[in-house]
């Protein structure tokens, strides 16, 4: 990526600045560099000047589509840069009636997968100070020298099992497609958990969930969480207790995952956002796996026209009960 970085960024900037200047969009949602070189944050660009801050590198993990929920209130026409997962998230929002297709311009960015700082540090065994990418290899610069590794080994968790790196919906595709990928490991963790006894699984989750701070960062990042008032905050009825105990931890996490049943687009933003590293994706993927097995393959976010599996039925559907 880095080798074409300058060129790619130029292409992107040209395309969006034309639309911004030409009034076809009032705002562009993109990325700008964060405090550190290995961070980025959303860029809300309204002017040519703003666009100078635009970046596109291996650290643009953040899913921008969800920002449309707020920005469409203030701006009539919004442009968004969408990677594969941002585009699927857009379809999710479209299907949930949260965005108006005509008011959004999607600039598709086929995505090679984003890198993860912790991984870089782990591999370099020192604090990384910068990287150089070439031919699928990454050279990590540290105070002690340089270390080289396969790019695939440095991918962020959310990108490792990505099947659709290319945007599935866009108005303009700005870079050349990456192609569909395989993710044979996608359900491995789940299968492992399935093999455990009920007791072991409960203990596993009790421990994992015990770290939950109820900060709801997972929800804020999630494209399927678009309620105006989340059940956790409702007073009447009060679904969710406030106590930090297993009972309430399970309540929140099972219901959060269930609300994504047949709707989760597997972008992994929840897990990336979680400050205490709860493996939230495992709950999401378990539902995806079972629903697909029971009711046929369905991948949320691929096609906004296809009815999500829990909103439809077939008379001869199977059931997961001991009586079928």
């Amino acid at each position, binding site marked *: 990526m880095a080798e074409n970085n300058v060129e790619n960024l130029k292409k992107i900037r040209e395309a969006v600045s034309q639309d911004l200047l030409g009034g076809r969009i009032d705002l562009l949602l993109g990325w700008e560099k964060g405090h550190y070189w290995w961070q980025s944050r959303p860029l809300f660009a309204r002017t040519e000047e703003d666009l100078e801050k635009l970046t596109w590198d291996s650290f643009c993990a953040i899913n921008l589509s969800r920002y449309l929920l707020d920005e469409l*209130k203030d701006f009539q026409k919004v442009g968004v840069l969408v990677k594969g997962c941002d585009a699927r998230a857009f379809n999710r929002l479209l299907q*949930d*009636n*949260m965005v108006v297709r005509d008011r959004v311009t999607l600039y598709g960015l086929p995505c090679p997968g984003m890198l993860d700082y912790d991984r870089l540090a782990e591999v370099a065994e020192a604090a990384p100070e910068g990287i150089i990418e070439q031919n699928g290899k990454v050279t990590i610069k540290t105070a002690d020298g340089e270390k080289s590794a396969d790019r695939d080994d440095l991918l962020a968790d959310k990108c490792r099992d990505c099947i659709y790196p290319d945007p599935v919906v866009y108005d303009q595709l700005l870079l050349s497609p990456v192609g569909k990928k395989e993710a044979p490991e996608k359900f491995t963790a789940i299968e492992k958990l399935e093999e455990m006894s009920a007791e072991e699984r409960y203990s596993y989750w009790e421990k994992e969930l015990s770290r939950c701070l109820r900060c709801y960062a997972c929800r804020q990042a999630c494209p399927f969480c*678009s*309620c*105006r*008032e*989340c*059940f956790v905050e*409702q007073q*009447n*009825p009060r*679904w969710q207790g406030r106590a930090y105990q297993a009972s309430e931890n399970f309540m929140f996490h099972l219901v959060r995952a269930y*609300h994504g049943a047949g709707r989760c687009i597997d972008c992994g933003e929840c897990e990336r956002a979680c400050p205490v590293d709860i493996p939230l994706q495992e709950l999401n993927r378990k539902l995806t796996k079972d629903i697909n097995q029971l009711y046929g393959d369905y991948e949320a976010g691929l096609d906004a026209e296809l*009815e999500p599996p*829990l*909103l*439809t039925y077939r*008379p001869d559907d199977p059931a997961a009960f001991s009586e079928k």
Partner: protein
Amino acid sequence: MPRTGVFLCHCGSNIAGTVNIDQTIEASRNFPGVVHVDEYRYLCSEMGQDIIKKAIEDNNLDRVVVGTCSPRMHENTFRKAAAEAGLNPYLLEVANIREHCSWVHKDMEEGTPKAIALLRAAAAKVALNEALEAPKLEVEKRALVIGGGIAGIQAALDIAEAGYPVDIVEREPSIGGRMAQLEKTFPTLDCSACILTPKMVEAAQHPNINLITYAEVEEVNGFVGQFDVKIKQKARYVDPVKCTGCGICWEKCPAKAPSEFEMGLAKRKSIYVPFAQAVPMVPVIDKETCLYFRKGRCQICEKECPPQAIDYEQQDEIIERRYGAIVVATGFDQMDPSIYGEYGYGQHPDILTGLEFERLFNASGPTGGKVVRLSDGKPPKKVVFIQCVGSRDKARGMNYCSKICCMFTAKQAILLKEKLPDAKSYVFYIDVRTAGKGYEEFQRRAAEEYDVAYLRGQVGKIFPEGDHLVVHGVDSLSGKVVDIKADMVVLSAASIARADAPELGRKIGINTDSYNFFNEAHPKLKPVETHTAGIFIAGACQTPKDIPDTVAQASAAAVKAVGLLSKEMLQGEACTAEVDEAECSGCLHCVAVCPYTAIDAKEIEERYGDGTLKRTVAEVNPALCQGCGSCSAICRSGSINQKGFSNEQILAEVDAICLQR
């Protein structure tokens, strides 16, 4: 805090024998909000109801719990009593301490704590009950009948006679349906046209009946009492007001097409009436084959028409009208038996279906009423009838019995013998089914007096050999293989649902079974109702049936429709869903799961900053909502909530039941 009264019924010893009433009373006093507790031997008696009424007034109760039999038994009784005392009836809840408690548990040790738990749950729920009102719905005093066969005609006549206006929408250019295609009817052998035509004319002339032929239902909205229907009147290209039905146009028309009415065995013109007794006697132009429409020249009909009724410029029109009730009577089709390769249907002109064979008997049919082989025009000597072609066949056809074939086959075999005394009929059958008045006697006459040979078994192969068709079959009773050199073969092809029945069902909001027949609301007790209030079904669109059953069902559907139309107002469901617009994010998942299309999207305007923002929310039409609660279960934020079974109420019940284990 509510002021709740709890009333316990002994039901003689039915409850009191297994539930310790004194302990239960004591426990009930401690439920939150309970200010009054009482008991009586038979609470459902007038005395018992008076106790409740009086207590409501005396103690200023605003909530009531009765611990009695099942709510499915007496909930209405007690709610009426509460209403008489001035309390909104929906502020009363029933705890089922008889069917679900005293009758299924062995002693007081089991029964008493359970009764207390159920009462506590009811008291917790009732505290959250709200006064509800069932919506009152106006009734449009007009009925729509879809389908103008014998079922539709009969239903329309009955509704019209009861004094209500009724429209018949018929897809074909004429009413009459399948019965018009029949030569004779079993078991009396009266001529089909002789008994049907007078009814067709009566329908056409009835002041309360309006025929809309060559038209199809496009869209149905609304609900019981107020169905808003869009009907597409297809262009006839003939002005029905000017047309006198003189017939010169179709006489002169040079273009031909296979006649649908004659099952493709004969041709009709491009401007045509489907059959000689058509009602209305106004032709239509078939655009697909008309020379003028295809090539821009001809116009003979226009030149020849004495009253100048031809109008090539006519367009399809949409008629929009409101109806209080709808009767669906769209009839059936005959299965195409060509998938049964061993029978060779479609590969030889002398292998026909039952309905095709029927047309050969008709004086205005393709052979002018002569029963002859279509291959060479000779009268057949041996005719083989094969039953259950596509019926009772779960592998290649339909798993059900088509019901009419045994009888129409006996009829055709008798008619054949009467027309051609030298002809011999053979019937391969699995079972002969003749349940119906005079049916068994009729079928026996075929076998005994008309020399029809019934062979119990099936046919494995039919193939031409010389002038004949060799029918290779088995008679299972003798265990003998039979080869018959037949002249004609008649296949009793299954009666099947109209291919577009599911599509029509979706349009009007009724569902179909796995064979695409329309579903009745209850197989025994609601045979003409559907799950959608105000829509009724009649005739073979529900399942294959004969004419007497069809007519009876049509009259039944008409009575149901008339009963509905005769009401001034209808009472809707009170426990409907309701949307909290402030919370609703407008994802409309509720719309997707609603079986009644009772939920719609609605645009609302909301203050935002200095201006306003438009956004979508869900909106429930309480007249359509039947209170299933599926929407409330799918809503992640609980923004749509069912009254009477709200999230709050159900959680309160869970909490209360779990309080004490």
